[in-house]
């Protein structure tokens, strides 16, 4: 097999067929949705948080194999982490897990949609529990500088 088929190795195809942490959490503490206007990929993430720890996380939606595989890996990495730890997850953490470090620019958004949704969900949660306006501003700046 040649060319672009290489990125579709076993793990990506398997994850796309049998995604991990796929579904919804009924009594979630925060949920977030976003989509990619270019290709129509659409992801929701539900998170359950106990004492600042992510005790459960699930995603659902529609997307290509890259998007589904990255969402699976991301939720696996995230589960069990504290909010502060989860905030530091970067794109490299997801891409390297699947050998996608050299993914073309046009597909990178497929790979990182779920990370964007995760970060937005976390900031929504943190924002809700902030009283200090200055902290909210800081958070906004951090969110804007994400990508």
């Amino acid at each position, binding site marked *: 097999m040649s060319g672009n088929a290489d990125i579709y190795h076993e793990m990506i195809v398997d994850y796309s067929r049998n995604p991990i942490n796929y579904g919804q959490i009924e009594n979630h503490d925060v949920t977030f949705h976003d989509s990619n206007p270019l290709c129509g990929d659409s992801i929701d993430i539900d998170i359950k948080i106990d004492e600042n720890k992510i005790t459960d996380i699930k995603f659902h939606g529609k997307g*290509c194999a890259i998007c589904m595989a990255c969402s699976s890996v991301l939720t696996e990495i995230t589960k069990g982490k504290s909010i502060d730890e989860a905030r530091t997850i970067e794109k490299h953490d997801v891409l390297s897990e699947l050998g996608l470090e050299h993914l073309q620019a046009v*597909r990178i958004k497929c790979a990182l949609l779920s990370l964007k949704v995760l970060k937005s969900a976390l900031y929504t949660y943190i924002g809700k529990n902030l009283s200090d306006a200055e902290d909210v501003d800081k958070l906004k700046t951090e969110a804007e500088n994400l990508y």
Partner: protein
Amino acid sequence: MQSTESLFENLRKDFPILKRTVRDNKRLVYLDNASTTQKPNQVIDAITDYYQNHNANIHRAVYALAEESTEAYEATRDKIADFINIKNRQEIIFVRGTTEAINLVAYSWGRPHIKEGDIIVTTEYEHHSNIVPWQLLVKEKGAKLEYIGMNDGGELILDDLDKHLATGKVKLVTFSLMSNVLGTITDAKKIIEKCKAAGVLTLIDGAQAVPHMKVDIEKLGCDFFAFSGHKMLGPTGIGVLWAKKSVLETMVPFHGGGDMIREVHKYEATWNDLPYKFEAGTPNIADVIGFGAAIDYLVKIGMDNVREHEIELTKYAMEKLSAVKGLRIYGTKDISKRGGVISFNFSDVHPHDVAQIVDGEGIAVRSGHHCAQVLMERLNVAATSRASFYIYNTKQDIDILVNALNIVAKVFKL
């Protein structure tokens, strides 16, 4: 006279881009013609010649260059008039493309004519450019946007049109002559007949039709017609809005500025004659001239030959693709009712993954919602893959696509 088959084989040499290879020396198989087409040397040379030998602004100066450039610019207007049978060249307005043409109508015609409670009718298989401008207009005016639905065979349900017309509130019916996703050729004659009987204006989005078949505006009998140059061998950034003079005269200017005025005073201005009233500012002169060269090229081949060639390719592609296990083609199977556009899904593989793998084999197909999310919702899919043909495509291109789909099947263990 050369045979049509050798005519189409020979013309590939006019397209320099077809000589290049992609992705490790693979033949470029360009199947995204519904999106934009490649350009022959004749078009590229016309643009270069303009900049090298004639460049000057049009319609004003009296020197030699300005005269040449004005003449070449206006010559394209005449070529368009002949090409789609428009009797009055004053009715041909140059715009950036179909999107701008439709926005121009929504603004310049919609503003003075649409009132609260009025209805504009579009269809479920429109490109976003024939939906969103109307959404903006009806929101501003408190009017309503209604749809002609589509059946499972990818054809419009004209009973829906009857229902809307029966309200007596419809002011405009707008539809594409060929769907950019399904390739369905709309029964424009029937729609226009019904609208005329109800005294309702019609707008045709001809972006997908004009490049691929003979179109006769006079015969169609619509009130507005829009199409783009870049989907028919011409450069990007140039298109046409045609409208009946009697309708254009009831419209307000779209952009204000130079060339569109007769007289300007401190607090008021009067408008130039048609079509210049709607061509404010220095236009896209070079690309209008390039567009003229594209029309010359198509006229030389003959639009009936273009259509015949595409019917042949579409027939071949439908046969070959239908034989691929797990591949689902959307739209009608009746070749006489569709253009050279085939949208499909391959088992449960996402179209983006299909496009990526076949790209590795040098094939350019489009994947996504094709700027037709309303249609995607109707088909109940997030996206499709789309292969669309033009004059330089061959049966070999289709064979290469089918082979690449076998790679997709292998990777995804279908």
